């Protein structure tokens, strides 16, 4: 029972890593990134390629995450520019369609170029005992990585001037602009950062089980569900929703099977949108 709980929490943390990116990009750029899972896959597969090339696994992970960041940067500076140039509904629509197209491009490319590559990272000691419960080392490491990433992110957002700037843009883009903030550059930074966190999520997935080229859409939909349930503008909400849904996912998979679980999760997302569009944990405004 506790093993399931631990599994759920770890998976939830991993989902939050990606969902936070969706939240940040939507909050700052007004673009709902439907290619976010593909960012994770790019990071993970790049790591796998580096490992295959004989790079030390740790360095390979760092390089993989960096590749995801570079990919995010390039996408932001090229593909998303037309979306940023328009405003309101038009921007949302453009962003949605462009990233949807991008997700197909990445899927198609990886599926064609690297059909048989997947990322599976193995640790030296597969599991250990704590008070009579067998815990997978991978779970602990994955959880630790995710928690460290989140602590760093929160410290960055709450503690630094740049973080304050970012939060101000999320609250009110025009107001931030009037205070002399250039939203464009911050946006690029955030997209890059989100892509790197997604890449980290991809690496964690490889640590936890395995990451294949075809998993982009699956990861995107999970991250999207978490972001929606947590509130697409609330970072704390996203983290809470991730852990909550991770636990629900683990228990439901254990008791009612994988396919019903997915439908439960999807149903949760739909009802959240209909009942509390700002998310379960959002402040009332």
């Amino acid at each position, binding site marked *: 029972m506790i093993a399931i709980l631990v599994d759920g929490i770890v998976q939830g943390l991993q989902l939050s890593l990606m969902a936070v990116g969706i939240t940040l990009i939507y909050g700052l750029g007004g673009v*709902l990134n*439907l290619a976010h899972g593909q960012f994770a896959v790019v990071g993970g597969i790049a790591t796998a390629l580096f490992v295959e090339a004989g790079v030390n696994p740790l360095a390979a992970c760092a390089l993989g995450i960096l590749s995801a960041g570079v990919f995010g940067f390039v996408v932001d500076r090229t*593909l998303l520019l*037309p979306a940023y140039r328009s405003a309101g*509904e038009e921007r*949302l*629509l*453009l962003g*949605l*369609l*462009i990233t*949807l*197209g*991008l*997700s*197909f*491009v*990445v*899927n*198609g*490319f990886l*599926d*064609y170029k690297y*059909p048989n590559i997947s990322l599976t990272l193995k640790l030296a000691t597969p599991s250990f005992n704590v008070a009579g419960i067998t815990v997978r080392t991978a779970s602990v490491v994955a959880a630790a990585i995710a928690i460290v990433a989140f602590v760093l992110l929160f410290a960055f957002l709450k503690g630094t001037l740049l973080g304050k700037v970012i939060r101000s843009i999320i609250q009110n883009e025009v107001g931030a602009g009037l205070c002399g903030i250039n939203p464009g550059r911050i946006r690029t930074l955030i997209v890059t950062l989100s892509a790197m966190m997604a890449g980290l999520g991809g690496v964690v997935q490889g640590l936890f089980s395995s990451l294949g080229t075809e998993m982009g*859409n699956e990861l995107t*939909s999970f991250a*999207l*569900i978490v972001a*929606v349930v947590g509130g697409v503008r609330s970072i704390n909400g996203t983290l809470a929703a991730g852990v909550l849904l991770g636990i629900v996912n683990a228990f439901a998979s254990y008791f009612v099977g994988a*396919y*019903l679980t*997915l*439908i439960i999760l*999807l*149903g949760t*997302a*739909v009802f959240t*949108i*209909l009942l509390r*569009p700002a998310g379960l944990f959002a402040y009332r405004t």
Partner: protein
Amino acid sequence: MNKDRYLADYVTLLLVAVVLALVPLGVGDSAHYLRIVTLMLITIAYAVAFNIIFGHTRQLFLCIGALAGSSAYLSVVLAIKTGLSPWATIPLGIVSAALLGGAFSYVSVRRGLGVIFVGIVTLVFSLIFHNLVLGLRELTNGETGIETKGLGAAVLQSGRGSYYVILAFLMACLVLYHLLMRSRAGTAFRAIADDEFAAELAGIDVTFYKVLAASIGSALLGAAGAIYAFYSGFISPTEYALVSVDIVVLVTLLLGGMGTLLGPVLGGVVFTVLDEIVRPLGRLNVLVYGVLMIVLVITFRQGLVAALRKIVKVRIP
């Protein structure tokens, strides 16, 4: 002036009918190409339906395949389980798709969901549908799919005859579209597409017309999906997946031109030709669709019809 406008519509409808009717002659005896052009008709029908929903009332339904598939699965499974003729179960599928689409639209208009949330809700519905079909093995046979041959819809099964039956269906869709657009509803749709808020202020019942557009569009999607099911002789979740239907229809519509009569037809024809050109690339075709979609969204949002209008200086409907 008004008479003139309808004349252009009639001429276009007639031209489309004649040209598409001649296509099988050009294809000759090749069963392979006959199948491809028949599938083109189905894609065009999807695009006509989606045009009503997205092109005219700006409701981004990312569940084209799921709506078509729900109708298809409902009619096929009912026909198998109850022994009813497909001609009785297809209308049930159509009605269910229309109700589903109408419900999505009603809920999202009532809750004031923006384009993004409509997109998410319908995308999530697509995923739910996909997983339901995979999960309800006893009914749908999961990934393996169901044979639809010999269920009593012989007219729809492969061959030159079925091409003309499906063409008749497509022409019915286009005529319905034409009638819809020249009616009061068409005026309302144009007003909503221009500025929803202003339309509401002018006394247009935005909720009603959006739901109407979504229901009619979904009904047509359902009809096309069910017809495809009986035509192809086999259905599986892949045939109605996001990759196989939604992206193709989006590209077709963007390519041809949203909110036009000829757009979906033109887009469908050009897309089919392009698809044939990239076929040798095998699995890379998904990549090509993606690139095409991005390029169209960024640089060519008005579509072929608008470009043609500029070149030939004739008002094309």
